[in-house]
């Protein structure tokens, strides 16, 4: 271990590992610090991703694919089910193995990794971030770097210390709770989404099947709803009503910032990626692929800035991110604000009109169209999402 690195990445989730991988690939020195005992643990995620999205970064491996998804099922408040074939292929990850694999790929490129390293402050030089302070096995350390990449998740404090506004309004922070349970008898190739006030008001409930009757069952609600009733009480009710014989093998909770990207994700010497930058899809709450995309851009830009000895080049990351996904997320956010406030009756109406369609006409585009009929102001945004490249 050295006294100084070109880049320090704080947090070894998918966004951090990919940032470290792409930076170290260019030959700069990278140190990645993870506060937990294990990379990838605890898992706070539904684990559903598109296969194509993962393939951009890592070769698919059966070791971390729990199941393959070919269909979506949307269940409306009156329990009308609409089955829609998935264009492309989805997978349910085994995040514990997947995250190890990503960190391993960064290490293979030369990134040094330390777990149980709790970053508790930043170093500054000439008004620029110049390293981190951290605690490891009860001792305090300081280590310098030219750039710090904050990948410290939804609870990010690295960004805040670096002068970036990372606080999320509680109305935009969805409270998520999920169990992995056995004896969930659902189709192993279908992802289920439940909508409406019984299941998860201003959010949705999901069942993502893994293998052998295992499934991730979870839901997210806004802080506004959480004021009246907690996320876990909704999940307990659902399990008692629908799967009374299920056995819970693990449970996790966490905040999901259903918001567009932070206004600023770069300051002198510091860049934010993944959940820390709010690079989550604000419509679905999915953040693995988008976090890896953010991480890859940040890693490359940071390394280029160091190689060219022009650290101000890190600001290019903001533009590149917004061009790739940031602007799209702003649109998703507007759609979310329309759809998530639908009444139960509107969800039912949409489901009824879709059930009447022949199989070949059921597509996500058609779901969106039906949603638009109920809220015409969404028309332009939905059209942009489904009809632009």
């Amino acid at each position, binding site marked *: 271990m050295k006294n100084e690195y070109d880049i320090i990445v704080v947090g070894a989730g998918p966004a951090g590992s990919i940032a470290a991988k792409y930076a170290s690939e260019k030959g700069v020195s990278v140190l990645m610090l993870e506060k937990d005992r294990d990379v990838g643990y605890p898992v706070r995620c539904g684990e559903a991703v598109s296969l194509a999205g993962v393939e951009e970064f890592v070769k698919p491996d059966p070791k971390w694919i729990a199941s393959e998804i070919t269909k979506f099922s949307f269940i409306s408040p009156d329990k009308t089910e609409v089955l829609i074939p998935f264009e492309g292929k989805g997978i349910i990850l085994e995040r514990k193995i997947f995250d190890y694999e990503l960190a391993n790929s960064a290490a293979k490129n030369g990134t040094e990794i330390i777990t149980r390293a709790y970053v508790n402050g930043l170093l500054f030089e000439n008004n620029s971030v110049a390293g981190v302070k951290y605690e490891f096995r009860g001792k305090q350390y300081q280590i310098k770097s030219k750039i710090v990449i904050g990948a410290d998740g*939804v609870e990010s*404090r690295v960004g805040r210390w670096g002068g970036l506004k990372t606080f999320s309004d509680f109305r935009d922070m969805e409270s998520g709770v999920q169990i992995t349970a056995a004896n969930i008898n659902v189709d192993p190739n279908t992802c289920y989404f439940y909508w409406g006030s019984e299941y998860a008001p201003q959010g949705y409930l999901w069942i993502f099947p893994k293998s052998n009757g295992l499934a991730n069952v979870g839901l997210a609600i806004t*802080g506004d709803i959480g004021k009246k009733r907690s*996320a876990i009480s909704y999940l307990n009710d659902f399990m008692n009503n629908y799967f009374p014989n299920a056995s819970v093998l693990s449970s996790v909770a966490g*905040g999901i910032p259903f918001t567009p990207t932070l206004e600023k994700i770069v300051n002198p010497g510091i860049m934010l990626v993944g959940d820390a930058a709010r690079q989550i899809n604000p419509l679905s709450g999915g953040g693995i692929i988008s976090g890896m995309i953010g991480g890859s851009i940040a890693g490359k830009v940071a390394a280029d800035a160091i190689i060219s000895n022009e650290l101000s080049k890190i600001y290019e990351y903001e533009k590149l991110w917004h061009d790739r996904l940031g602007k799209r997320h702003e649109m998703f956010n507007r759609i979310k604000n329309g759809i998530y406030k639908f009444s139960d009756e509107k969800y039912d109406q949409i489901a009824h009109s879709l059930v009447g369609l022949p199989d070949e006409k059921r597509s996500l585009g058609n779901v969106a169209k039906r949603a638009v009929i109920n809220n015409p102001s969404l028309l332009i945004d939905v059209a942009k999402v489904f009809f632009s490249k």
Partner: protein
Amino acid sequence: MVLLIEIIPDKCDFCGCCVGVCPEDAIELKEAEIKIIEELCTNCSKCVWSCPIEVLKFNFDKTAGKKNEK
């Protein structure tokens, strides 16, 4: 009595949800360790509403004010 926000550490999942919504940076989270920094906390309650598993709650500091009881 003074209104306080309290964390029940035994129930906590250490997910950091409350840290992300705290506008005052008043919650500190380490591996399996979480605490509210009372000097910074304004009792805004955002952390209470955003906690998915009801780990945070309002409580009253029953010792506060006793110094004045003479």
